[in-house]
Every structure is written in C-alpha cells, then in structure tokens.
C-alpha cells in the first residue's frame, strides 16, 4: 500500500517480536464498540499517476488571469531560485528546530530572517513568524494589552483591512478587549489625527496605524504614532514589507517610533495560491521582547566556542509556560519564512526598492489612465503606494464580470466593506504589469463603462450588480 514499506514477512516478524498474533490485538485496549466504523464513503486510493492527472485537470480548469486585485495579497515576481531551494527536503521535511545541533540550517536562516525583518521594520526584535498578517495583528493587540497592563481598549482605524479587523475581533473578543473604530477622511482616504480626539478620553492600550492603508493610501504615520504615545497608548503599525523598501520604517515613525510592527509577509516571495500559506511577521522594541508571541532564534556558542543558533526565550511559549504563555502558537509558518529570507537575499536592498518603485509607478500610471475614462474618478486625494480606490459611474459587479470575460480580474468591489463609498473599486498594479497590460485594462474598462452608461436599445439590459 502507498507509503508503507512493510513486507508480509516484516509484519510477521514484528508481530512475533511484540508477542501478538494480529493487528487486532494491538488495539485491544480500545473499547470494542468503537472500532471499525471508519467512513466507507472515502473513495478508493488513486495511484500517483491518477491523482497527477486529476490535479492537472483541476488546475487547468482554474486558468490564468490578468490580475489587478491586491487588497492584502499581492502578486509579485518570485525568482525561481526561491522555491527550488525552499522545497529542498532538508528545509521542507524538517520539524521545528528543537534539536538545535541538528537544525543549524533552519536556525541560522531564521536568525538571518530576523535581522532582515527587524531592519525593514526599524525595530530591534522580530519573531520567526505568525500565521498571517491578520492573526499577527490580533496577537499585536493582545501583546499591547499585556504590555500596557491597565487598558483593554484598542483603537483601529477603518482604513485597516476590513477582513483583518474581523479576524482581530474573533481572536481577542473572548478576553474582554474592546475594539474601537476610528473614522477616515472621506476626501484624503486616510485617518486624520484630529479625528481621534474624541477617543482621547478612553483609556487606550494601543492605536493601530496601517501603512499603506487598505485603500492604498499613505497615512500620516508620524502624527498618528505621536498621538498614540501622547495618549499613553502603544502604536501598532501594520505594514507591507515590500513597501518598507521605500517607506519610513515603523521604528522611526514620529518622535519615538511605533512600538510593534506587524504585517503579512506574503509579498516577499510567497505565491498568492488562493490565500495561503502566507506568514505573519511581528517586530517590536527590545523592551517588549518578553511579551512577544511565537518562536525567537538567538545566537550563542557551542562547547568549542563556535557560534551557533538556537530557539531562545522559550519561557514565553506554550510548551514551557502553558496557560501563562504569551500565545498558544506552536507550529508557525517556517517554510514561508525560508522562502522570504531567500527572496530578500536575492533581491537585496536595491532590488526590493526597484520592485517597490516599479509597483508604485505602475499603480500611478494605471490610476491615471483609468481616471481618464469618462465617469471614472479616483476616490481619494491622499498619496498612494501601489493600490488605489476608483469610483465608477455604474455598479461595480457587472463591470467586473465583463472584465473577467476578457481575462481581467479588475479589482475588489468595496460595496460590502465600505458601502458609503458607492460604486467603488480597489485596484492594484505591481511590478508584474507592463504597459500593454495597463492599456488593455484601460481599453476594456472604457468600453464596458461606456456601454453600460449608455445601453443601446435592444441590447442586453444592464445587469443588476
């Protein structure tokens, strides 16, 4: 049978060595009535050849698309070396590096990762990953509340990814933490420090500051971080790691810098892949180290005095501290971090900055092109990174369907998350797009919007969005 190496003779010898006569007997401590009821509807096993064909067919069915959706998951070119190395068996099939001497490959890589990520964030300490950006934000909220000691309220702007806000709610609500929502400026598309004053009297553990925010707009991060500190709250930054190649690192925001930085590491060499696995990163100032959730690698020496790497500060973690741990996280997203580390090493500071600049330039060019279409306009005046909100003169959903018929995924419809924005669309362009792509999108959008604004008599009735 697949993956079981035993010959009949092996089985005989082994049962005899154990001193039982059959497999049955191996389970003699299990109540009889519980046994053998396993799901007969599981389909019979496929050979590797059969499953290969099946999966190829399903993959082909899903096709290839010209994608302009971002909204928290970004399409970037991933150098071929990244995954050819990350899937080497020695990385791919190792466990968490509990036996440090037998895991120096993973451990040194994580130490290098921590160095790179800490520098990107401009903070001293990072861990070796959390599940994803959204759950990392939830952990940051919990961490801030632990660190703050007295306050249990956290202020989160509406410009933070709405799904992430839901995730935070799911994760923290049972611990009696209250989440407050800060409004955004409907003209600029970012949070206004002035608008936070109404929360000044609340005892706040933290203010969350996204950069860029969900609309792709750059927030006044210096002012926001300072506001948080002025009000006795920690500043939690939510950042895109590729953007950090260009943007001021959270550790330098305002007078004192953000205290914690989190984000989704997916843009660093992790494929979109229908949503995962990605990884969450978290960095903080040194003073918060012992509040940090998750694994941390430290440098030390061996008995010969040579440098080596090991999991450290484990007294924060569940396997030591159990119910008093900083988090329940155990298995994290190590292989994704492996890929991200290789990605960052391949790109280097100059390469990553090029990716960021080209993405920004493409997004700007696209926004400009699309806003030239009759009736289409940019929703916000604030500066953007690589994503922007457009207002359409017609409902978004049917337009997206019409674009899809041309092979284009035109962006994310904001109707449900931000009904106040009307027929609004969140569009992203990274370095993966070229001029023809942008032109192709613009031509199609112009055609579709044009047609829908003035439907010809006798033609299709405009579909309801």
């Amino acid at each position: 049978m697949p993956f079981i190496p035993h010959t009949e003779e092996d089985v005989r010898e082994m049962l005899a060595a154990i001193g039982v006569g059959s497999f049955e007997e191996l389970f003699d401590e299990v109540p009889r009535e519980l046994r053998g009821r396993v799901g007969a509807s599981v389909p019979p096993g496929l050979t590797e050849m059969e499953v290969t064909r099946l999966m190829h067919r399903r993959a082909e069915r899903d096709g290839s698309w010209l994608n302009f959706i971002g909204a928290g998951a970004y399409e970037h070119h991933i150098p071929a070396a990244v995954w050819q190395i990350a899937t080497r068996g020695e990385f791919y099939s190792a466990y968490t590096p509990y036996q440090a001497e037998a895991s120096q490959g993973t451990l040194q890589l994580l130490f290098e990762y921590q160095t790179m990520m800490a520098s990107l964030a401009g903070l001293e300490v990072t861990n070796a990953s959390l599940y994803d950006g959204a759950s990392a934000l939830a952990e940051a909220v919990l961490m801030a509340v632990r660190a703050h000691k007295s306050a249990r309220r956290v202020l989160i702007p509406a410009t933070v990814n709405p799904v992430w806000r839901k995730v935070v709610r799911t994760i923290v609500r049972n611990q009696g933490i209250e989440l407050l929502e800060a409004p955004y400026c409907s003209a600029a598309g970012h949070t206004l420090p002035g608008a936070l004053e109404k929360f000044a009297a609340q005892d706040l553990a933290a203010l969350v500051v996204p950069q860029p925010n969900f609309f792709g707009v750059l927030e006044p991060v210096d002012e926001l971080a300072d506001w948080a500190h002025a009000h006795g709250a920690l500043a939690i930054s939510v950042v895109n790691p590729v953007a950090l190649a260009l943007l001021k690192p959270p550790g330098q925001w305002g007078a004192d810098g953000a205290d914690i930085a989190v984000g989704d590491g997916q843009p660093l060499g992790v494929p979109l892949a229908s949503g995962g696995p990605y990884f969450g990163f978290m960095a903080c100032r040194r003073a918060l180290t012992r509040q940090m959730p998750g694994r941390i690698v430290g440098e030390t020496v061996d008995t010969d005095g040579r440098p080596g790497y090991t999991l450290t500060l484990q007294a924060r973690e569940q396997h030591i501290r159990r119910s008093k741990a900083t988090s329940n996280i155990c298995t994290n997203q190590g292989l994704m971090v492996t890929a991200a580390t290789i990605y960052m090493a391949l790109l280097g500071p100059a390469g990553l900055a090029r990716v960021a600049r080209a993405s920004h330039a493409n997004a700007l060019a696209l926004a400009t092109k699309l806003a030239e279409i009759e009736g289409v306009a940019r929703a916000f005046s604030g500066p953007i990174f690589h994503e922007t909100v457009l207002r359409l003169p017609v409902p978004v959903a049917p337009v997206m369907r019409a674009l899809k018929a041309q092979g284009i995924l035109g962006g994310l419809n904001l109707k449900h998350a931000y009904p106040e924005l009307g027929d609004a669309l969140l569009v992203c362009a990274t370095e993966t797009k070229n001029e023809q792509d942008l032109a192709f999108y613009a031509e199609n959008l112009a055609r579709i919007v044009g047609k829908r604004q003035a439907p010809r008599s006798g033609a299709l009735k405009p579909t309801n969005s």
Partner: protein
Amino acid sequence: MLIFELSRPGRHSKGLSPHAAPGQGAIPEKHLRAQPPLLPEVSELDVVRHYTGLSQKNFSIDTHFYPLGSCTMKYNPRACNALAMLPQFLARHPAAPDDTGQGFLECMFELQELLKEVTGMEAVSLAPMAGAQGEFAGVAMIRAYHDSRGDAGRREILVPDAAHGTNPASAVMCGYTVREIATDAEGNVDIAALGSAVGPHTAGLMLTNPSTLGVFERGILEMGTIVHDAGGLLYYDGANLNAILGEVRPGDMGFDVIHINLHKTFSTPHGGGGPGAGPVGVNARLAPFLPLPLVAEAKGAYRLLGDADRPLSIGRLGAQLGNAGVLLRAYIYARMLGLEGMRRVAAFATLNANYLMAELRKAGFELAFPRRRASHEFLITLQGLKQRTGVTAMDVAKRLLDKGAHAPTTYFPLMVPECLLIEPTETESKRTLDAFVAAMKEILAEASENPALLKNAPHTTPVRRLDDVKAAREPRLTWKSP
C-alpha cells in the same frame, strides 16, 4: 558564515527586479526611509550556494529517521508538493471570484467531506492554520455554544496534566481558566479526579486520545459521560489522530469538537516549523459556530460561505481560507491513500511503535508504562540510567544525533522524569527501526563505559552542544555589523 558577511555594497542581481527603476514617484518625501534596510548585497549564485549549504546542516525526514514523539514525522510525498505547486494553483488570487477557482474549491470541498468521514464529525471547517489555531477555534465554539444558550457560568476548561502546552494556552485565549486533571499510574486520566473536578462551571474537557503519554484512554466513554452529564463539551486534540486513523473515529468516541493536524496525520511537510493546517470538525449542535470561510457546493458549483451565510460563526481566523497550499497537499495525500490506505495508517503506525517499544525494552530500556500497549508512540524514562550513570535524557538525545537519527521528543510530558517520547510512524521500515535499536544499545553501553562521550555529545554535527543558557541570558537576536 552569515549571508551578511558575503555582502558587498553595490552588488545586485539585476535580472531579478525590474530593469526600469523609476524614482520615488508620487510618494512625499516625509514618507520615505532615509537608509536602505539591512538586506545582503550578494549575487544569485551566492544566495543559492549559501542556502543550499545551510540546508545541508539540517536533519529532516528526507535525510534521517526522525522519531519525534507527538510530531508524526512521516514521509511527505513529493507528489503532493509537485501538484500543489502547479502554476494555476500558485497564481490564483484569494479574492478572485469563486468561478475562477472551481478546480481548487472542488478539492477543498472534497477535503471537508473526507475529513468528516474519517473523523465521524458532522461538519468541518478548513480555516485554522495550525493545531493551536484549531484548538482556539474549537474552544471558541464551545464558548459560543454555551453563550448562545445563555449558559454563561461555565468559565473553566479541564485539561489532563499531560496535555500539550497549546491546550491550556488556547483555553486561556478564549477567556477560560484552566484546571489540570491528574494522570493515574497507568497513564490514564484519573477518572475520579475528573469526576470531582466537573460541575456547572465546566465548559469542557480537552483531551488527546491516544494521549501524549502514548496510551489509549481506556475510560474514554466514561469520561465523556462525566463531562456531558455536567453540561460540558468534549474537545479532541487531533495531534495524535495518526494513532487511530482508519481504526477509531473521534466522533464515535463522543467528542463534540475536534481539530486535526494535517501536517501530522495527513503528512503535509513541517517545513522547519510550519506551515500546518488545523481543520476543526464538530457535531451538529456546534456546526453553526464553525469558523469561516467554509466551502459549499450546489449543483456542482463551489463557493465560499461568509458571515452572511453563517451569522452565528465565531468568525474568521485569518485573512483567507486558511493555509490553502497545505490543504491541497493534504487533499492529494488523502486521495492517494483512499479508504484502504487510510485504514492502514493507524495499524502500521501502531505496529511500528509497539515493535520498537518491545525491542527497546529487550535492549534494557525502561518503559514509562510497561503494562500498556503503545499507541503510535511510547514513552521511555531514563530516570534509572541517570541515577546509575549521570547520563540524562538530553545526553542520550544528543548522542543519537551522532548516530544519524534525530532525537525523540525530550522531557515531554513533563510529569515523566527523564523521558523520551518516541514515534516512529508507519512510513519507516523495520530495517530503520532495527538500526535505531542498535544505536540505542550502543548508547546504553557507552553510558556505562564512557559517560563523558554522551555528556559532550553531539560530536559530528555542524556545531557541538550549544549553550542555551547564554542564548537566553544575553539575547542576540539579530546580526550586527562588527
């Protein structure tokens, strides 16, 4: 040598980023960073050579026997990796419309169905991204259930003292207090202690069965009755599902909610620390609370369900549908096993564990529970050896590295002194097990003849024994240019 030490200012692999490098565009000056981040400036060849070299410093399933108890280090089929990485799967954006991902969603739907079937649960969500997140979701559902009934006094979760650390930590994240239940001399949960612990404050009991002590909880049905009668729910920590897959189903044992570590039982790779996937399964009364998204099917079309479809859901645990690529790998593995294959997992995992246990006992090792059958893993204690020779479980573990085997889990569960938790898994051959027994025998002899050899082990790894105390006392968590 760290990658930073290979760095040279101005070096740059040009072909890997866009040729055209426009300036800062429309980004205001005040938003820009003043100094580039500390990423290495190296060539593509440097990177390939450096990380290929690092990889060779790891033990892994692909290179070594890895009998790490509780972790189920079995063979990760290469087909799962190849097929989950087909270009169309990798390229798909998570927010792309469902109709652009029917191939993918069909796999996810079928995986939900398969998991229901093999666990005996009535509904499954694939959302949790690891076992611990599954635990969180499971306990959060327990809480949502009690809350939905206005049964607000239940503020305590029970866990056996042998439980994995994630169990109490997860319960606390859901706002519960945790009470530990003792273990009896035979490794079972002390049923009397359980009986006196339950009450109207009991939200539920979290249980691993077979337990982390490597034995099947013989009183499982009785325990279920005790907890249920007290109004609590029964949570199954599926980390040890490999021990029963194809033999017994958690649903049939009376569990209300479970999680499954796909990175254990369904053989997705551990990746040096993750990613995993921790789907949760529930019986009918907890189904409305399952985390989102879920995959639904109607007339052969698949779609993701959200808040609007499931108003009572505990919500979302992550930004997307869990660790999709891990779920794909598990699906492919499950399809290759099929019913016959799954039926054999527990049988052969148990055969290997009991064989190894029998042989180690013959070799002179002391079993923690000598009167018990091993599940898919078993515990030995080196307490006696330590008293005789001063050699600890840690020393034995390190010496095993020299012999070409990864060490078993050490010092867990905590209440068995000097223990090694050994889990061979069903994918290892008798030959490999025999080689491990031989190595353990050699070590036993060395412990008497030359204990220093063990105290100073390992000798053949890329580094010798590392100073963990120094690492924690003087934390050096990032590289600094000298």
